[in-house]
C-alpha cells in the first residue's frame, strides 16, 4: 500500500546502493526531481534501466553513481549525443560503465513481460541486427506451431521503479495521462516503486473508467513534487523546457562545467526548486 512521504524519505527508504533502478518516462513525465534526490543522497553502484536515457541519466552517470546501464536509445532528444555517457563509455570517466544494449521493441516487451510476471519476452525482432552478437541476453525461442524463430529477452524486473505522474489521491492511487510510455509496466515489474506527482488530491474524481491508474496497493511510496519532471513536461501542468535540453549539450561538454551545474542545481537545492523551474512553462503545452 502506497504511503505518502517526502521525496527525501521515499528515495532513502527505497533506493539502495547496488540496486537496479528504472527511472522511466518517454519524453513526457521524466522523474528528474527523484533522480536529483538520488544524486544528493549519493546512492551509488546503481544499475540503471531506461529505454531512452537522456540528460537525467547523463547526470547520474556523470556523478559516478552508475556501474551499468541497460538501454535502447541514449541521446539528448532533438539535440544529439550525451556527453557524460560518452565520456564514461569511451574513456571510463568518471568510472567505467558496463552497458547492456537492446532495441526499443525488446525493452518495451521486456517491461511488459516483467509486469506480466513472465521470465522472458518473446517477439519478432533483431532480424539481421548486430546487437544479437554483442548482447548475450538476446536469445531465441522457436514457435512450436509454425517453426518460426523468434527473439527472446529476459523480462525486466528492477529492484525499484521511479516515475513521475500527474496525480495521486489520498489512498495512493496514481493517475497517468497523455504519452504513457512504459511507466505502468515499470512499476508493476519492479519490487518497489517511488512515484512523484504534481499534486495529491482528495480523490481522483470523476475520471473516465479506462484511464491509466496504478492502484495504491501496487505502489510503494508517493511524494508530491510539483514541477518534478522538469525539463521534461507534465501534460495538463506545464510544457517541455526545450531550451534546457539545448543548454545541456554545452553544460555536459566537460567535467568542470558539469560539476558546477550539479553543485548549483542539484546539491545546493531541494525538490522544492522544481516548482519554480516550471513557473514560466505552465500552460505551455
Amino acid at each position, binding site marked *: 500500500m502506497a504511503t505518502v512521504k517526502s521525496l527525501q524519505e521515499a528515495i532513502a527508504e527505497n533506493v539502495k546502493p547496488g540496486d537496479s533502478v528504472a527511472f522511466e518516462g518517454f519524453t513526457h513525465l521524466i522523474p528528474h526531481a527523484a533522480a536529483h534526490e538520488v544524486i544528493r543522497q549519493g546512492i551509488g553502484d546503481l544499475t540503471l534501466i531506461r529505454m531512452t536515457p537522456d540528460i537525467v541519466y547523463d547526470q547520474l552517470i556523470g556523478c559516478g553513481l552508475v556501474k551499468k546501464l541497460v538501454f535502447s536509445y*541514449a541521446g539528448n*532528444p*532533438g539535440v544529439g549525443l550525451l556527453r557524460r555517457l560518452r565520456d564514461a563509455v569511451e574513456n571510463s570517466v568518471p568510472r567505467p560503465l558496463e552497458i547492456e544494449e537492446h532495441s526499443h521493441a525488446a525493452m518495451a516487451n521486456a517491461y511488459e513481460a516483467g509486469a506480466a510476471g513472465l521470465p522472458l519476452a518473446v517477439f519478432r*525482432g533483431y532480424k539481421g541486427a548486430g546487437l544479437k552478437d*554483442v548482447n548475450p541476453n538476446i536469445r531465441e525461442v522457436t514457435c512450436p506451431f509454425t517453426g518460426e524463430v523468434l527473439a527472446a529477452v529476459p523480462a525486466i524486473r528492477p529492484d525499484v521503479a521511479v516515475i513521475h505522474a500527474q496525480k495521486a489521491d489520498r489512498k495512493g492511487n496514481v493517475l497517468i495521462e497523455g*504519452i504513457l510510455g512504459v511507466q505502468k509496466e515499470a512499476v508493476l515489474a519492479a519490487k518497489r516503486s517511488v512515484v512523484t506527482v504534481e499534486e495529491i488530491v482528495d480523490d481522483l474524481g470523476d475520471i473516465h473508467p479506462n484511464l491509466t491508474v496504478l492502484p495504491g496497493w501496487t505502489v510503494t511510496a508517493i511524494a508530491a513534487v510539483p514541477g518534478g519532471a522538469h525539463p521534461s513536461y507534465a501534460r495538463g501542468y506545464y*510544457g*517541455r523546457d*526545450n531550451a534546457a535540453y539545448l543548454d545541456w549539450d554545452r553544460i555536459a561538454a566537460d567535467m568542470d562545467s558539469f560539476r558546477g551545474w550539479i553543485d548549483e542545481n542539484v546539491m545546493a537545492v531541494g525538490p522544492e526548486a522544481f516548482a519554480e523551474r516550471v513557473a*514560466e512553462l505552465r500552460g505551455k503545452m
Partner: protein
Amino acid sequence: MAATDFTPDEMMTIAAARALSNDDVCFVGIGAPSAACNVARLTHAPDITLIYESGTIGTAPSVLPLSIGDGELCETALTTVSVPEMFRYWLQGGRITVGFLGAAQLDPFGNINTTVIGDYAHPKTRLPGGGGAPEIASSCGEVFITMKQAKRGMVKAIDFFTSFGHGKGGTDRQDRGITTKGPTLLVTDLALWRPNPETKEFEVNAIHPGVTRDEIADSCGWDIRYRDDVEETPPPTEEELTTLREIKARTAEAHRRKGA
C-alpha cells in the same frame, strides 16, 4: 509553379515527402523524416497516418516536435497508446506501411549504423544506438532513408549493423526470413536513390536540380551506380517550399523559450 531558390536540405525533405501517399501509415523519426512526413500531410497527402513511437497514432502537429514525445503529438493525435502496445500491436502487428530512418553510417545496401563508430566494446564514438530502428527496419512494409551526403556517412562497410537493410544484397534479406521489402528509397540532399531490383545496391535514380555527378561522388564513400535513365528531381513547387518553410518557422518560434 516551381521555386528556384531553395537549399539542398529543403530539396531532400520535399523529395522524401513526395514519396509518401495518402494511404500510408508512417512510423516517423525525429528530424528530416518528421519534416518530410508533415510536409506530405500538409500538401498532397492530407489523410496520411503519422505514428510516432511515443505511442501517438494519427498525429497532426502544427509544429515539428523536438522530441519523439512532444505534447503536441499527443494533443493532435487520434489516440495515444502505451509504448509496449505501440511496438506490439502497431509495429510488429504489421500495420505500418513506411518506416522512416536516418543513419550515422549507411552502406550501399541500406544497412544502417547508429550505434558506434569503431569497435563495439571500445568505440571511437559512442552513438545513441538503435532505438526503434532494428524492428522498424524489419516490420514496416518498406523503409525510406534520408540523410545528408558525406563520405564518412555513406560508407562501403558500416562499423555496426544497427538495422538490417538488404545485407549483402541480392536475396540476403529474404533468405533470413524477413518478409518485408526493406529499404526502397534513399533521399539525400543531392539525389534520390533506389535499390537495383537484382543486386539491391542503391543506384541514383534522380539528381536534384543543379547538382553534378561530381558533387555526388565527392560526398559518397562507395562506388556510385546510376540507373540508365537518370532523371532530374523536379524542383520544389512553391506550395511545397512554403509549407516546409512555414512549419519550420512555426517550429523555431515554438521551441524558443520566452526570455531565454
